[in-house]
């Protein structure tokens, strides 16, 4: 369920690192908790974000939730598919429905995030 090559945050975001780029999304657990997602608000490419700072927000029928940046850096790409079809976040949160790509500002940060096993233990305890 939770890919081994991702790293995870306590706020239920994931990041997958390819070279100097991090692809960021929300976890399957997050989409389940949010329920049907109706709107995704992400910053424009070029925006600088800090680890733990607000990246954007996701709106479901239940609530609007902030999404926090799992790593620092500069937004290089925003997933264009989510503007028209936010429901993809419910269907494929770990794949096609990634949120943004970030050019990593501090690659060492990634190591501080949780592994798949640690994240699964974390959400198990949260329940």
């Amino acid at each position, binding site marked *: 369920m939770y890919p081994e090559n991702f790293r995870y945050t306590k706020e239920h975001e994931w990041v997958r690192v390819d070279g100097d780029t991090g692809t960021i999304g929300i976890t399957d657990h997050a989409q389940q908790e949010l329920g*049907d997602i*109706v*709107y995704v608000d992400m910053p424009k490419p070029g925006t600088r974000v800090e680890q733990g700072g607000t990246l954007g927000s996701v*709106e479901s*029928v*239940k*609530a609007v939730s902030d999404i926090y940046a799992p790593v620092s850096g500069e937004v290089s790409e925003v997933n264009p598919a989510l503007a028209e079809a*936010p*429901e993809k976040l419910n269907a494929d949160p770990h794949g096609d429905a990634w949120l943004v790509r970030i050019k990593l500002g501090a690659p060492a940060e990634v190591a501080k995030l949780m592994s798949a096993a640690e994240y699964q233990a974390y959400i198990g305890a949260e329940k």
Partner: protein
Amino acid sequence: MITKVRPHLSPNERLLFERSSPGKTAYQLPELDVPAVDPRGALGAENVRASIEGFPEVSEVEALRHFTRLSTWNYAIDYGMYPLGSCTMKYNPRVNELVARLDGLAWAHPYQPEALAQGAMEIMARLEAALAEITGMDAVTLQPAAGAHAELTGILLIRALLEKRGNPRRRILIPDSAHGTNPASAVIAGYAVEHVPSNPGGTLDLEVLHRIVDQDVAALMVTNPNTLGVFEHDIIQAAEILHAKGALLYMDGANMNALMGIARPGDFGVDALHLNLHKTFSTPHGGGGPGAGPVAVKKALEPFLPTPRLKRSGKKWAWDDKRKLSIGRVRAFYGNFGVLVRALAYILAHGGPGLRNVTLDAVLNANYIRHQLEPHFDLPYPAPNMHEVVFSDSRQAKRGIHTGDIAKRLIDYGFHPYTVSFPLIVHGALMIEPTETEGKHELDQFIDALISIAKEVETDPELVRTAPHGTRTTRVDEVTAARKPVLRWKPE
């Protein structure tokens, strides 16, 4: 068993646009007895339309029945209990409506000269004084239009004071049990928000505060009692931690219904707070608004309050606009005056002992509900609760039934739903605030309804999952409504 309501017929009603037929009117004007004027000449041709497309034309009886029929589809506080947690949907006493409609008040104009507005100004001055006494604060502004507007005003006051001291600072701390509007207010005032996790008891964690409060923190925004309905018992120590670093304590006073006449925020270290007159002080709420959100402050913040300020000039009241440090106006004229009149009438009708009884009864009602429902619903934070109680749907969720389903089933029982999925600190929250104005009979019916639904979840979960069944419209497709909203009626 459903005892409070039974099905009855209610008329279907189309939109007025759809009822319209050309030439129908709901009025009859006398023949013109002065020379006709060409409006294009008087107003300019560009300002005059020959016709308004789609303008509904109906007769008087059609217009009257239209709105009367729609009103029968409604739910209102005059119809039954409205247990929305955090909203304080108490009864709006009719005498307050009578007072606000007195000719001299209802017809007062904000441009009336001061000499002809002394009565209205006296009402505002007395209300300011009463609210200062109730909260234990030094000065009050009545301008802000409602709670979130008042939060913004309060944070701007704090910012102005800190700027005057040389550094506005950058961060505002907000506990995870605070009202949802607090972070937005802080951000609009130019601050970064830092969330403060609660301790396992659901209250402020002093160790966390000790660690994160520094010279960069402008204020802590705390809701007290918090959204779990729990009193922040360490509030005095929290204020000391903040004050020691030059930071301020802002209190969201939306839950003042649990403190009024018993405890005063000014006595437990609060520097600024707002009140919701449309909650604690019984003025109409929601569709019957507008609201009013006075902000009360300690002396240090008083010079920054919005202008104009009321001041005593000899034996008369006057408006003072010449206040150099003021953050300026936050609202046209003097706030929502009609609401202020109702709130003062409420305060004077109750008096001090009466307001204290309001608080005691509000807390009693919430605890009665808690006690009766605790065997049937999970109570995640067992700390003593004040004016509201928050259950979780964790027992029902095991059968696939969530708080939203239970709320919708409650409609079938003749009640407005409670607050759903808030506060966020409780997973699957059922947040219930009865207020003091419900009697035992209505409370018992509400409790019986929820117990009955809890049993249905065990015996027939599908009945709850697909509720409501007895309403004009059954469960709506919230997802499509949010993803593809239709915001405007258009002819087919």
